[in-house]
């Protein structure tokens, strides 16, 4: 009997929780704010679902209720991706500047 693919996804999920657990404990407390903004950015990888939804119409009906929700989700996720990564970069650059000052 074959194993349901769901079980594999569940395995990835559970193992990723453990990876997340150990990786996040190693994050230095002074970078907890950038941690939040970067997790924000990466959780917006949900945009892949939004893109599939947005592209699900055919050439006659690009816009139907389903694709419109897809397009809206694309815009929301894009705000997060760009905003999240850029604001993280901006914050981390400030931590960098300090090192230069020290030298």
């Amino acid at each position, binding site marked *: 009997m074959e194993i349901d693919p*769901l079980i594999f996804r569940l395995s990835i999920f559970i193992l990723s929780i453990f990876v997340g657990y150990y990786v996040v404990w190693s994050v230095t407390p002074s970078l*907890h704010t950038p941690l939040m903004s970067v997790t924000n950015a990466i*959780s917006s990888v949900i945009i892949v679902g939004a*893109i599939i939804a947005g592209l699900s119409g055919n050439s006659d009906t690009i816009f139907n209720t389903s694709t419109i929700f897809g397009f809206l989700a694309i815009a929301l996720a894009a705000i997060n991706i760009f905003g999240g990564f850029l604001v993280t970069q901006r914050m981390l650059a400030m931590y960098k500047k300090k090192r230069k000052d020290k030298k």
Partner: protein
Amino acid sequence: MISANLSAIFYLVSGVLFILALRGLSSPETSRQGNFFGIMGMIIAVTVTFLSTGNFSSGFIYVLIFISLGGSIGAFIAYKIPMTAMPELVAGFHSLVGLAAVFVAISAFLNPQAFNLGFPGNIKLGSLIEMSIGAAVGAITFSGSVIAFLKLQGIMSGSPITFKGQHPLNAIILISIIALIYLLCSTQSANLFWILLGVSFLIGFLIIIPIGGADMPVVISMLNSYSGWAAAGIGFTLENTALIITGALVGSSGAILSYIMCKGMNRSFFNVILGGFGGTDEAKGSVSKEQRPVKSGNADDAAFLMKNASSVIIVPGYGMAVAQAQHALREMVDTLKKNDIKVSYAIHPVAGRMPGHMNVLLAEANVPYDEVFELEEINNNFANADVAFVIGANDVTNPVAKTDPQSPIYGMPVLDVEKCKSVLFVKRSLSPGYAGIDNDLFYKENTLMLFADAKKMTEDITKNL
């Protein structure tokens, strides 16, 4: 168009890059590289999605339009936002992740063929369960984050909103969400799907309103965690490895941060979530207290004390963020350093409105991060320091947490500020802090209260140095 297997491998790669993005944050040196890995992971995931749909028709143009629309809004916000507003920004971003998850779930529910999930009214059971969990958690994340945002932004009062029967009501709603998911999966009814979304929005709102302003570090971390679980739920629906890995990472990250924040207050997670802390008892407590004498001083006195010190420890808190005093503070410290006075910063885990809030503000003001210490690292140094300069912090310095088992904050780890030879306490008035209790530190012999706006006082001290 690339095969499903190949795109699955690329999604795995982007999942690994996201892990490396978080790993990079273990030190400031590697953090920027980590952020780069994160961006790479995102680019790979989006590109692979385009390639795997193989649809470059007119719909594709609209996808690009919406990405650039959202992207430019996001970039604009990221460059404009002042660092003091980071908690609001993060709360706002969480709400968007939640809403995006809801929209993707709605889209998949209306048009399941596009995702290979079956047909409307006959969606595969497993997918429907995953979808409805993703949608419900996403909706809770959205409305909860909106409330957190409004509270942090000051549009809504930061004080807890409580009413009779609040907890039973929330419990009933939570149970009804589970019942709705069960019914939805057995009947495939679209109406139930909309009701489920509505009820989930409602509970997100109700969960956050009783939680007060200073508990926001826990709330933000918790919503961070929720946004991850919502993404993971959608990831299962879409059978997408990148989303599942990311959802799990973000979910556990937020959970760990909530745990660290709760530990920083010595309160259980449920105690925070049930809310109402520092609300009604406040009035009772302050009336019974007799007026005790305090010593207050001006910038001149403070400057004199610091000039004669050989080491100074700065204890920043939320008040520093409110007054935007971080730059003025750094200038003061620069002057102190010119006089060969050793200065370090002590940061309590729950100082500010989100994890690491103070660190970012100090970083913005160009404070070298090797002068900034966490509670455990620096707490023993207070006894050897000459002056503690408390700016905008209150409850986290209250010695009552160590001495009075009756106090609501008893057992909370606090900074041993009172062990310093002298304490300078910048505060606008004698009012109690968030916990609604008097700070014994105000009345100690070696404490000098500086009643003023944090920024103005710091600037005045610098002038007098």
